[in-house]
């Protein structure tokens, strides 16, 4: 039987159920007709995606396709000119409040640029707790470091004393320390070596399972996205050209030419003739 491209399919509920649920808006994250304009450049041209609670959703495309802009728009870091973003059915306003950031956290691409160079790991992890006025810092920091496999030996180090993979673990710990339900991942492993990438991807899957997190993950690497995500959207020039299930992509059941080209390119170089 052909697998339905929806996470609900496996639970034995039919399409009717799904559509009625859509009406009730239970998506963890729903982006509808989103437009982002920088000066006069339309970075996003009416993009819509819907992510179920607990789902891992991928965004792929080349540079300039708008995949990172979409992620940043959700985080409140891009100028949205039209369209809506809804979290658990509640539409978000122009400004994000503190409660939003307790629910949604982001991990950035470059572990060398996203950690403060003059703060220890301990200080970095205390920052979000201080902002949100959370008391049990000691315990949370220890737990977060444990969870990302660093241990308390790393607590008083500076980021320049860490490798790229360790830094990205700290960035993940910082995102997890507020116990969010959604993680926005912007190319979390593209600056890492292949062997370190495998470790970080395993870690992300592990925390997702342990905490029932919802992922929205951007990557230019089709193999990484199909490994990590159940469904994905392919983007080109600020538009979603195709949304499909990862198993369909793996089986080359794709409809869009651009998706096909990406798939072909990910297979490596082939000499003509």
């Amino acid at each position, binding site marked *: 039987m052909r697998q339905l491209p929806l996470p609900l399919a496996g639970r034995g509920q039919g399409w009717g159920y799904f559509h009625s649920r859509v009406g009730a808006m239970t998506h963890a994250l729903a982006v509808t007709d989103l437009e982002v304009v920088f000066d006069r450049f339309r970075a996003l041209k009416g993009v819509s995606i819907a992510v179920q609670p607990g789902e891992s959703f991928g965004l792929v495309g*080349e*540079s300039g396709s708008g995949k990172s802009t979409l992620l940043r728009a959700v985080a409140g870091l891009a100028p949205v000119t039209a369209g809506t973003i809804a979290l658990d059915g509640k539409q978000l306003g122009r400004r994000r409040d503190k409660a939003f950031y307790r629910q949604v956290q982001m991990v950035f691409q470059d572990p060398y640029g996203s950690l403060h160079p003059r703060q220890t790991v301990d200080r970095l992890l205390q920052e979000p707790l201080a902002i949100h006025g959370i008391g049990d810092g000691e315990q949370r920091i220890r737990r977060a470091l444990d969870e990302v496999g660093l241990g308390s030996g790393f607590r008083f180090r500076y980021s320049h004393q860490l490798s790229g993979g360790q830094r990205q673990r700290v960035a993940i710990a910082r995102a997890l320390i507020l116990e969010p339900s959604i993680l926005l991942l912007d190319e979390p492993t593209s600056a890492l070596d292949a*062997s370190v*990438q*495998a470790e970080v991807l*395993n870690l992300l899957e592990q925390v997702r399972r342990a905490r029932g997190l919802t992922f929205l993950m951007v990557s230019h690497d*089709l193999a990484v996205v199909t490994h990590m995500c159940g469904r994905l959207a392919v983007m080109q020039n600020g538009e979603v050209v195709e949304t499909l299930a990862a198993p369909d992509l793996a089986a080359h059941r794709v409809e869009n030419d651009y998706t096909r080209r990406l798939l072909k390119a990910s297979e490596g170089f082939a000499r003509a003739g």
Partner: protein
Amino acid sequence: MNKAAMSGNLLDIEDLRVTFPTRTGRIEAVRGVSFALGRERLGIVGESGSGKSQTGRAIMGLTPPQAEVLAKTLAFDGLDLLALPPRERRALRGKRIAMILQDPKYSLDPVMTIGRQIIETLRTHERVTKAEARERALDMLAAVQIRDPKRVFDLHPHEVSGGMGQRAMIAMMLIAGPELMIADEPTSALDVTVQLDVLAILDRLVAERGMGLIFISHDLRLVSSFCDRVVVMYAGKVVEQLKASELSRAEHPYTRGLLDCMPKIGADRHPLPVLQRQAEWAQ
């Protein structure tokens, strides 16, 4: 006539060492690398810090001045590169040995038009008139499949895309007709679909001109699909050399681990196998 010239190899390297002095002691980035290159495509693969780029730079003569380069043999077409006076080494660089760098954004001169940069390379190495130089630069731009060479000739690097910039870089490197090309991550800064176009151009030109190519990359699978032979480096040493077609039969646990830990489309492996580094690989 020395040994290297008699072997007929384009490049002979034996026991190459590159050492950097630091405050905490000497760091050996390359520790006894040996390989030979004919007119073929050789891939050098390794992770960051494996010494692959420093190997390429030592051949090119671009090692930072504070570092020390030692080798039993470092010979290009029979010439002992380490004994060569700087002036002769300079004449070699760009003329007979050329190098393509990773990111055209940083490796092209931002305040010179693309055409002028290409002509500069040519006129450094050959005595040609301005008109002839321009003619050859335009031909070269056409050879790297730039559709409108006359327009691109007058553009500055920031006015072209990454793929176009890298083609211009290839044109600049090929214009003096080098015999050996060193490409250090030539397509890593490019999008996947553009990456393949640029590789196809490089592949065709290398084959047509019978050049030797050293392709340095962290991407084992890309290298094996492009090169004839692959050298795998770890911690400054060569751990394995093999034919690209026999990569699936690699014996060294590092090579196997590196191949294994990458996610593959269609393979359902959760969690991914992780590379277990052994201390003896670095010895």
